[in-house]
């Protein structure tokens, strides 16, 4: 049955250049000037802007990553088994304007079909931390599932002497809201690894998260623009297979 599914889709394991990489949309939100743009630039690795400016509306950045994952593979002797492969993912980051007027009318469009959320505040500015509940409400208002992976980032840790939001209080808040918490200094080049961690944590959560799977057939087919979701489905099938019947699969090996 499982091999049949594989064959029906006509695909084996994905390779990193596969156009069928899984795409995840991540929205980055938080008050004005907390460093959302810096953070996404730093992660996406491209040219780092020396002079970041206020974001107007929504900016888009992307990064292709691979993470380890288990997938169902067909071997040459028509037996199938589980193997570890690198799953290509594309993280699409929607960097949003912090000013209230934008989030009230322009940004809503980008909450649709979002797979994960990054909340950012500025550790040197209490008001940006205090706004977080409003940002969480904002997500709820856009009917994001409570299961949608979320991450909390306290940025601008390079200004340690001006830090007013202690790690303890932020950690407490993130625990209460069930999201991993990171502190970063997106301005500093040496922070690259740390920022990578933020996004890779999210990537792993996304990989493991069932509700994050691409939409089902009928929904995908109903809209042209989601056409690519159809192409993504083999991965979903692979992962679903893994998640659903790990022991069976292991036995089959």
């Amino acid at each position, binding site marked *: 049955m499982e091999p049949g599914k594989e064959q029906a889709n006509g695909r084996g394991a994905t390779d990193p250049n596969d156009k069928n990489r899984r*795409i995840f*949309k991540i929205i980055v939100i938080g008050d*004005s*000037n907390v460093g959302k743009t810096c953070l996404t630039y730093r992660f996406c690795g491209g040219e780092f802007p020396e*002079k*970041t*400016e*206020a*974001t*107007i*509306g*929504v*900016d*888009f950045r*992307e990064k292709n990553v691979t993470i380890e994952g288990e997938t169902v593979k067909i071997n040459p002797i028509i037996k199938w088994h589980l193997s570890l492969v690198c799953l290509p993912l594309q993280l*699409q980051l929607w960097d949003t*304007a912090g*000013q209230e*007027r*934008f989030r*009230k*009318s*322009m940004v809503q*469009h*980008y909450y649709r079909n979002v797979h994960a959320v990054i909340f950012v505040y500025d550790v040197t500015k209490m008001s940006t931390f205090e706004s977080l509940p409003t940002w969480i409400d904002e997500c709820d208002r856009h009917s994001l599932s409570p299961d949608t992976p979320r991450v909390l980032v306290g940025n601008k840790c390079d200004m340690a002497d001006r830090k007013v939001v202690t790690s303890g209080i932020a950690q407490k808040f993130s625990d209460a809201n069930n999201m991993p918490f990171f502190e970063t200094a997106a301005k500093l080049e040496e922070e690259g690894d740390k920022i990578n961690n933020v996004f890779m944590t999210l990537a792993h959560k996304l990989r493991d998260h069932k509700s994050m799977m691409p939409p089902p057939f009928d929904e995908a087919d109903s*809209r*042209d*623009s989601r*056409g*690519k979701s159809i192409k993504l489905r083999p991965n979903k099938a692979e992962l679903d297979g893994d998640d659903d019947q790990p022991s069976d699969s292991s036995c089959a090996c």
Partner: protein
Amino acid sequence: MSAKRRQRTPNGKKTPVTTDLNATYTPPPTAAKSPQGPESAKKAKLTAIYAALNSDPVDVAALRKLAISRGGLLTDEIRRKAWPKLLNVNVFDPPPKLKMPIEEHRDYNQVVLDVNRSLKRFPPGMQDEQREVLQDQLVDVIVRVLINNDQLHYYQGYHDIVVTFLLVVGKEKSFSLVDKLSTHHLRDFMDRTMDRTKHMLNYLLPIIRKANPKLHDFMERSEVGYVFALAWLITWYGHVLNDFHSILRLYDFFLACHPLMPVYLAAAIVLEREADVLAVECDMAFVHSLLSRIPDNLPMEELVIKAGDLFVQYPPHEMAKEAQLQYNKSSAITKHKELEGNLRGQRPDTVLRRLQGQAGGQAQAGSKQSNRVVKVAVWAISAGIGAAALAVLNSAMEFWV
């Protein structure tokens, strides 16, 4: 060059400068050789601009044409003189008294945040100290305009517009110009919400549909929306173009035109990039990502012409009907009609300077007689109108008048 002469006909003969202009139009045959072509065309244009500025009343119709046609108003020195005329601003009027300290304005903190990180907008190589002085001035101009017009709300991107004025015309003049612009062209962006900004952006896709149904269909399927053009519209491209001269050239264009012209230019840019758009995956992210970045090498002068053509072929009131938009909902548009009516009858700066100090009022000799000539002139740009556009010029004029 003969086109320039044609452009000047509405008022040209009244002014003594016309003679000078004619002199530049009859160069010896050898001088007309191509290497000198652009230079002499520029010289003729300079003369024409000064002629328009110095005639009494100021020949705003000619000035608008010159601001729209190739190269725009050419130099910052001219812009300092011409921009106020395009907005019917008397730069000699004393600035209004501030009703409160700027730090107390509700938007002050946001303005400071945005201005502090607007480094990219200042000429590279400018000394930090000099830039900081300008940044202080920028905050000052923005907040003064906001205080002067309590109904206006600051939006991120407004600072990109104001900095352009500040760098060209200086602090005092930029206050009067931005003050006027904010209650006219930019008015819809400055509501408490962005509903009316959205309303203006709502014209974009219908224009593209008219001009290129296939491209429109692709964009619609991708669900890209119009947010990729938001920064274009609300900053008049100041936020998205790297070349300051291109920005200034567009400001000349927009100051001489209808408030929806930035949307028509957006349509022209998208249409120009048809092949690029159709080559990407039909998905919001890919299309948004492609379109939101304007390449440096776009043929801006041609796009200006294209935008003008689109405007004449698919005028806003017709688009509004088709797209079921409420045309008159826009303050920017209704106020523009008013501004149009008041543009004629402005006195040249030499006269205004003389009148300075005397009881005001006479500077606005405001004849409200038919401004049909002005309006036709705006679009009778020599190379600017294709045959199809000319065919519908009349219906467009009905709208104007």
